């Protein structure tokens, strides 16, 4: 139906690059955009560009944020002695929804996976070690030295890659004297953290086990 418009065809192509969007869905979305009021389309386009222009990674926890440090890292109400390590920004959202966790986060940006060519150096592991080490030892010079981190919760997904990454980090942090725990296996087998419901996640947080 869009043989007459190369412009529409271009939009369909762009939509079909998105995850879970097939060609049919892309055509439906394009047809919808055609009917939208101009100002709504402008808002959508601006929102898309703004994500790229304004959103950055928090330099402390590497979560996505508009302001650096992110609101969680900047909050005075969070427990700065606890860091929960997760794979992706979406995992932070899942844990925040439980309302149970009051500590800080650290977003790795993935897991160790040789099959995908991802090693520890491709993740924010060195930064995590520096965070924990910096808080524990401190240089004794800076006035606003962070409160020491007493517990690190490893909340990678309960699969082979998540377990291996947790073990790897556990080995590094164990040497620093921080208490390292792994989130308990209350999660459904093969289930991703992102899809776990709040109750399951709350139970998992309560039942975390020492490494």
């Amino acid at each position: 139906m869009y043989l007459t418009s190369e412009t529409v065809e271009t939009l369909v192509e762009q939509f079909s690059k998105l995850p879970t969007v097939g060609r049919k869905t892309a055509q439906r979305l394009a047809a919808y955009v055609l009917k939208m009021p101009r100002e709504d389309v402008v808002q959508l386009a601006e929102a898309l560009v703004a994500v790229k222009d304004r959103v950055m990674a928090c330099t402390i926890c590497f979560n996505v944020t508009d302001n650096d440090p992110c609101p969680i890292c900047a909050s005075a109400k969070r427990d700065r002695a606890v860091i929960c390590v997760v794979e992706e920004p979406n995992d932070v959202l899942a844990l925040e929804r439980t309302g149970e966790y009051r500590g800080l986060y650290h977003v790795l940006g993935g897991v160790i996976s040789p099959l995908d060519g991802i090693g520890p150096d491709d993740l924010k592991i060195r930064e995590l070690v520096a965070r924990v080490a910096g808080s524990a030892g401190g240089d004794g010079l800076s006035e606003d030295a962070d409160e020491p981190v007493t517990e690190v919760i490893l909340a990678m997904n309960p699969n082979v890659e998540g377990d291996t990454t947790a073990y790897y980090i556990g080995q590094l942090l164990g040497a620093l004297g921080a208490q390292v725990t792994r989130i308990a296996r209350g999660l459904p087998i093969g289930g991703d953290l992102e899809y776990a419901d709040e109750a399951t996640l709350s139970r998992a947080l309560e039942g975390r086990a020492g490494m």
Partner: protein
Amino acid sequence: MRLLSLRLKSFRAHAETSVDFATKINLLHGPNGAGKTNVLEAIYYLCLTKSFLTRNDAHALQRGAQFFEVDGTFQGEQRASTTVRLAYVPSEGKRLFRNGAPLVRLAEIVGELPLVILSPTDHVLTDGGPEHRRRFLNTTLSQARPVYLDDLLKYRRALKQRNALLHQIRRGGRLAPGTLNAWDEELVQLGGRIIFRRRQFMEHFAGFLAEAYRLLDAVGEEPTMEYVTVASTHDASDAESIAVRFRDKLDSLRRRESEQGRTLAGPHRDEVIFRLGDFEVRPYASQGQHRTVGLAIRLATFLYLRNRLEETPLLLLDDVFGALDARRAEVVLDLLNSDAVGQSVITAARPEMLARHVQFGTGDHNAIALADGSVINSSVTTGIDRSESLEKDEVNTVDATG
């Protein structure tokens, strides 16, 4: 457990076939190429989510078809009836539905609908390569204990990852220190649990194997099994200490593994040695002995799973009677008729001998004639000529099995 009915759509030779099953013995007969074995294959798909004939699901797709579908209704002894449907589309893979609800993981169904299959190639269990014996351990244990299958799938994934890492090392790639160590840890933890459960299983299984073998060969020496793995029984008695031994083994192989770029020890390399009395079956047994031991292992698997699980496994026999001598054929048929076995489904090109021993069409037993991928008739004995000479058949098979 009992299979009530089965439907195949675009599956091998079957464009659309429906079969109803009787409570005890079900005989599928008809000429070669009629699609008898593929009915067993479809049942196998529902219970174990794969084929026993091929590793490539596309092979089970009828020529020119876009997808295949198999569904079956099972009646449990302990559970209400369950309908299982498996659909395969080449671009999307397999999907499994239990009572209409999709399963997140195919593996979820394994063990719920227990099944054992006897086939004329079972001699590979002792005269084939070690992979056949590992597959026997894995298939049996996966049905007996869901946690075993979970660990096994994870182990395979960890193995793939570790091999990818060793491959990088072989090509001179630079690794962050401790990376291989972390994969070793994951592999040995999973491997330790797998080896421990295999060892436990074999201790338990030995009695069932001896029992099954006695049925088939009353005067022969008793069969025994030995599990060859990274740790011996006396220096590692639990999963944790097996993992420690496994890690030692990997440490000692590190240089060779880096050179070859793959993992050289673990459950994926283990071996099972079968013996009759003092002599090892694999190198020394006759063809006939390999057949008998193979059959005994399968029957023992049935007895073991029946003992271990709430549900009596379904027993499939794919063209087994053609290769058995008269006495053993009778032993197996008596077993199928007895209370020890629940429901069985048999394929045979020539059903005459079976028809002489089993009253088909009586309600408990059903004979189903197939031709060109469809059911010709069911529940009746028509088409089976009971008068044909049994003796000739028997003499031939006795010669063949030695």
